[in-house]
């Protein structure tokens, strides 16, 4: 049993795990452990994981940095992100720990907190306890249970009532290690009434070892708040990213979650959106660019619980060489959720006979006055468009490039940070040209 070594490890090192974390996080470990022992990691025997047996990633000799051995790195000195000069507010998680450097953090409105999770738990124990683990369900998700057992630290963005952070905040997740590692990190965003902020999270692996990462993100968006949550993955092919995002939205709130898989190894992104107040709006965007034997699986579950909510989902994949894409989009419209508007679109471009796409829309509607639609297409590059471009003197390879970049455009249009959009267009172009083999601009791997 793959799980046994983690069960043993947890029992054996429980006191070390606790001593390197905080009480509120420690309090939840036992219940998570109990669930984990029952359900274990998801395997392809579970329908929602039929194309992604994520349990296999754990069937390896992975280390966990339970004793909090410091990782020798000052990311502020050594790391240049691919999306530079975007944010005044730059934060780092090195593996599963917040890298503290208070000097870098300035310009936040009064009362806003952006920083380490352990620190937040000490400063705002009441608020933390009210939210931590309250959105992330693990009864049917062994990855979240596992994360909850071992997670030492993470990142918190707390926005009190009526606060607005105009400039985007950037969190960079760095993976470092000399041996293969299991990394478990947590992100928590609390937006109180009418608060607004944008967070960009970038994933980078620096060292050439295997990392198996679980990331659990909880977003609580209170009335009329607006949270933009953008993720950019630029990992090496040796990284397994297993992310689970949970949102709870109150009335008239808007959460925009957009995830760009620019370069990866093996990725599973779970989304669980709950529209719990009237007139809430959710936007979910996903773009995956894969080649080699990369694997990208996005599982989006949108739960419309209240009337008059809207959701708009757009997922696109460009699959080359021997890569695999998986998309499942589930929309649940509950009995009371009248006047729901839910749109889901999934478009996939498969440019190689060896690449595979598995796509499944899934609509469950229990209210009678709703508008839901889903569109799904998987195809090749348009021959006629190719010919048209070529007749203007553009060579075949370049024409392909133009069409592939064009294909990604409407996902980027969901991003509300103009400079990020432009930067992504540039990076996507580089990616298609094969100039972004690992993490582009980063000094460390050059």
């Amino acid at each position: 049993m793959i799980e046994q070594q983690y069960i043993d490890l947890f029992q054996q090192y429980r006191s070390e795990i606790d001593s390197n974390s905080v009480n509120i996080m420690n309090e939840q470990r036992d219940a998570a452990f109990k669930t984990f022992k029952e359900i274990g990691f998801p395997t392809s025997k579970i329908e929602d994981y039929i194309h992604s047996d994520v349990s296999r990633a754990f069937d390896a000799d992975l280390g966990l940095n339970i004793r909090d051995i410091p990782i020798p790195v000052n990311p502020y000195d050594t790391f240049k992100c691919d999306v530079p000069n975007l944010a005044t507010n730059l934060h780092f998680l090195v593996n599963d720990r917040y890298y503290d450097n208070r000097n870098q953090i300035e310009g936040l409105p009064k009362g806003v907190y952006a920083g380490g999770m352990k620190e937040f738990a000490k400063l705002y124990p009441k608020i933390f306890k009210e939210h931590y683990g309250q959105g992330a369900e693990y009864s049917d998700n062994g990855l979240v249970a596992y994360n909850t057992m071992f997670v030492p630290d993470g990142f918190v963005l707390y926005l009190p009532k009526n606060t607005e952070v105009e400039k985007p905040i950037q969190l960079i997740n760095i993976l470092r290690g000399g041996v293969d590692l299991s990394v478990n990190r947590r992100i928590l965003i609390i937006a109180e009434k009418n608060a607004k902020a944008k967070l960009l999270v970038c994933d980078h692996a620096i060292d050439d070892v295997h990392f198996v990462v679980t990331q659990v993100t909880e977003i609580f968006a209170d009335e009329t708040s607006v949270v933009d949550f953008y993720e950019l993955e630029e990992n090496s092919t040796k990284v397994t990213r297993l992310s689970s995002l949970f949102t709870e939205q109150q009335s008239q709130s808007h959460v925009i979650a957009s995830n760009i898989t620019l370069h990866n190894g093996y990725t599973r992104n779970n989304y669980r959106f709950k529209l719990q107040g009237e007139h809430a709006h959710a936007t979910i965007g996903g773009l995956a660019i894969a080649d080699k034997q990369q694997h990208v699986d996005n599982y989006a579950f949108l739960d419309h619980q209240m009337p008059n909510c809207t959701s708009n989902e757009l997922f696109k994949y460009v699959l080359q060489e021997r890569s695999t894409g998986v998309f499942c989009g589930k929309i649940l419209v509950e009995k009371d959720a009248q006047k729901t508007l839910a749109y889901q679109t999934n478009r996939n471009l498969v440019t190689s006979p060896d690449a595979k796409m598995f796509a499944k829309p899934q609509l469950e509607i229990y209210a009678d006055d709703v508008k839901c639609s889903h569109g799904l297409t998987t195809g090749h590059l348009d021959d006629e468009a190719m010919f048209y471009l070529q007749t203007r003197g553009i060579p075949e390879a370049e024409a392909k490039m133009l069409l592939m970049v064009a294909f990604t455009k409407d996902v980027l249009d969901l991003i509300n940070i103009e400079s990020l959009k432009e930067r992504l267009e540039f990076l996507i172009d580089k990616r298609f040209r094969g100039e972004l083999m690992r993490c582009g601009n980063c000094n460390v791997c050059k």
Partner: protein
Amino acid sequence: MLSIKKLHARVEGKEILKGINIEVKAGEIHAVMGPNGSGKSTLASVLAGNPKFEVTRGSIIFQDKDVLDMEPEDRSREGIFLSFQYPIEIPGVSMVNFMRAAVNEHRKYKGLEPITAGDFLRLMRDKREMLGMDKQLVSRSVNEGFSGGEKKRNEIFQMAMLNPKLSILDETDSGLDIDALRIVAAGVNKLRTPENATILITHYQRLLEYIKPDYVHVLHDGKIVRSAGPELALELEEKGYDWLAE
């Protein structure tokens, strides 16, 4: 400039062109007319190198080079331009990026440096104004949401940008109202020089009132059944095509 000899071509196993012969010299305008299904558009597609069409016999020589050996992009860079009957919409590719890529590929082929940003914008503006095109159109995606007339005008705009030696205009008049037709025809006439040539493919004589051909060829069932001067077009307008089919 262009010499088409005994050209046979087929699509999906069906022979469409059954031995075409046309000679085009620099400075000339040739009209290719004929009823629907006679092979006019196939001829245009074959000249531009559409891979859907298979040339089974014959030759196309353009400026002493064998065109049939060339990819569509090389034909373009050698100076052949096709104005599409049905221009393709390409969402997400902006007209500006498209034209910059095309212009620079042409320059690269000639051993020139890429065009500077300033020169490129000036070129775009001049050609756009020449064709009376809305500024908005060139800032949008290629042909996306363009009306039929705007698409045709955009074809001639691209032609003006690339300054080809041989332009093949495939039913450029269809879908144009009379004002648009005048503007497009004026654009084609302005681009005319003693060094370049044009093949007009058209069903109707209407376009030929604005662009005067030197020769008119009538295509029927994949063959040229009659070639003559511009007076042939008028005769066709009067009598239709049936009398030539016998």
